[in-house]
């Protein structure tokens, strides 16, 4: 049994501590917005925030979460930055299949929290861990810049 703080609420989770956070979110708590893409920290589909920092939940054992705050795509819109990012994503029609976009938005929101006016190099550094098989990268870049402005 472990207690995790997720999206502002405490959840008691009955699973082995080596279980990656991703599967607790998806399979035990039903927070399916966070996606499985590779399981080896290569694609970023599973990105969530731990105390505001982006982490790959597919390789993060629950035991390593401790008492840090977990934020997922379902709640990132409650932050000012997350809301701006989502609005820019809608305005520029970023998603195609949409499967990678939770992770993209989580990475982008973390970037803009740290670096409110990112240059292209900042965007490359923060976003290159997130694969989009549909190839929405140019719109993601534009949406990050738009979110930074607005």
């Amino acid at each position, binding site marked *: 049994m472990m207690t995790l703080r997720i999206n502002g609420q405490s959840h008691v989770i009955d*699973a*082995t501590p080596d*279980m*990656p956070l991703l*599967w607790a979110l*998806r*399979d*035990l708590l*039903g*927070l*399916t*917005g*966070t*996606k*499985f*893409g*590779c*399981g*080896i920290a*290569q*694609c970023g*589909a599973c990105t969530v925030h731990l105390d505001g920092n982006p982490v790959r939940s597919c390789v993060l054992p629950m035991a390593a979460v401790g008492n840090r705050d977990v934020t*997922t*795509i*379902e709640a990132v*819109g409650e932050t000012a930055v997350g809301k701006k990012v*989502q609005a820019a*994503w*809608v305005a520029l*029609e*970023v*998603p*195609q*299949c*949409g*499967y*990678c*976009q*939770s992770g993209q*938005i989580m990475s982008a929101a973390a970037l803009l929290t740290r670096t409110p006016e990112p240059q292209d190099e900042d*965007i*490359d*550094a923060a*976003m*290159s*861990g*997130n*694969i*989009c*098989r*549909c*190839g*929405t*990268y*140019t*719109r*993601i*870049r534009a949406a990050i810049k738009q979110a930074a402005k607005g």
Partner: protein
Amino acid sequence: MVDNPAYGVPELARRRFLGGGLLLAFAVVGASRKAHAAGEEPSLRAIQGATGASPHGGFDGFAPGGFIRIPPEGPITIIAPNVEMGQGIYTGEAMLICEELEAGLDQIHVVAAPPDEALYKQPILKSQATGGSTSIRGAWTPLRQAGAAARTMLIGAAAQQWKVPARECTAKRAVVTHRPSGRTLTYSALALAASHQPVPKDVQLKDPKDFTMIGKPLPRVDTPGKVDGSAIFGIDIRVPGMKVATVAACPTFGGKVAHVDDRATRRVPGVRDVVRLPNAVAVVGDHFWAAKQGLAALDITWDHGPNAMLDSAEIIRNLRDAHGTVQPVMARQTGDVDTALGKAAKKIGADYELPFLAHATMEPINTTVHVRADACEIWVGTQVPTMAQKLAADGTGLPLDKVVIHNQLLGGGFGRRLSADSIAQAVAIAKQVSYPVKIIWTREEDIQHDQYRPAYYDRISAGLDANGMPTAWVDHVGGASVLATYVPTGWPEGKLDPDAVEGAAKPPYDFANIHVDWVRADPPVPVLWWRGVGPTHNVFVVESFIDELAHAAAKDPVAYRLDLLRNNPRAAGALKMAAEKSGWGGALPAGSGRGVSLHDSFGSHVAMVIEIAVTETGEIKMKRIVAAIDCGLAINPDSVRAQLEGGIVFGLTAALYGEITFQNGRVMQSNFNNYRMLRMNETPPIEAYVVPSSESPGGVGETGTVSAAPALGNAIFAATGQRLRRYPFDRTQLHGAHAEGVVVSSRDAAQKTRVD
């Protein structure tokens, strides 16, 4: 908005199914089949069926045919005949219907069509499937007719109620207005009455100048749910009592399970069952992690079967050797290439080679299945719902109508979900357990048990006149039949698989003498369509080689192409637009270059220019991409641009990294660490332009992928003088090769241009 089709307890699902739009399409089938008359438009046929004697299967509302449901309360439901896998088809098809129905995209929600060939057969593919950039081309007329017929009936119902002539009434935003009196009735209020209106025999479609939606970059209906985590993909389905499984199939094609020791697996916390199939083993757990841990703990002995020694180098050798040993199948013969070659001032030939490719959809392969004694329920994102239903019926022994498919949003398709192999496997697993089970393939399983874009080895040559213009064009395409995958008895020997030559048989150019044939060689590897289908592999060869000819003639590659496009103004228009917007011909630093490609595919004309720089060490830096498409009337120009952008990234990924290889029968790649994807830091700015046009709509989704590899290869040549005739492009050949005009000989003799 997009509705996430029914999921939940089976009872609830059934109730929603009976009460909601989804099942309704089922419910009207009986009636609609009765009413079908040969030769009628499908939409009108369907309308007649739905409005026949049947009270619409329990749906209290207006259900004209397969595509529209208007309840007395709540939003209108649009049932999209094609599946949403990122291409924006839910929005595009809803726009076609709503333009004529006179409803706003904010007044509707869109659901996936259930399997029903009678209602949702794709007219070009001739089955209920989504692929080949056919959706809009097939939907263009029937969906507008469906909207117009429904609107006519709604207006008719209002006119009857008001006792006024229908011609005095107009419809807008789901409201009918009687102009002289100003009275109004909403579509909801008219839903029941409209059901009793006569089905119009004929409908008048709008003049395009009166379109208020078609041609506008309207917001996609599925975007909001894709930015807040609420969109439900197949992998997100949760059914009460459901367990989660993951699976390992025999690592060699055609191999079997010999022995399984599952003692360690059964000790893994959360593991529930180990299920054995002839060629695979699945572990079922309370959650995916338990299943995955359990699978890792299995000790499986495989009988590797007939392909245990499969090796890609050998496959490529066999493909090459087929030229000259296998009787080619004729695809195109115009003029007399032999005579033309005899008179040619110069003859040029080259061999091109393309690798096997995996699809790697972002959403890993998954299926949720509940097999009961009397029914089978499946939640999955599939491009082929009727095929999935049929395979599940075969697998369970249940009648077709006892197999319910809840089609979901697809986290990418790219052709992978044109196969229902994983669905058949999931049913075979679910049959052995008493609870609903969600089977998820790991990424490793996805890469190693894909059905692959086959490898090709093409031999191409041309004769040039004294001006360097081609007088003869000879293209021998060498590779597998992909269509054979869909023909249980195999593709007949000696019969042309049109997909193999789709982008070769009719190049955009004027060739007075052209010969195209297909040298068939099927490797013992499961093959399938991949984004761009036939044209992706053909056009790489055609567009690289026409570039070779331009350089052999010492002419500018764009001007050379334009010279050959005098009878193809649309292709010429797209090419000119891409050239102009890209600054074609402008000066570039040493080691930089621009490459161009052009093709006519899927009813569209697409040109692309890419600008690159190649470093001393052979690294390729992509600087800028410009693409122009003439796809006829663009239903939603923003979706067209998005598809071009994404399709180009998909094609560049293959050109730079994509290659599946086999050794000792096994796929050597396994995940994104060794089957690489293009990433944000590598992707240059992409500008996509839509040529204004009022021609009938062409296909779009595949086109950017087709353009990418040849444009990049041509840019590499422009930057380095090195012609790379196989991809993924081998950057070791570009070391120190970036001095302008220096031609370094190819490493592989087979890949040298033969100039006589």
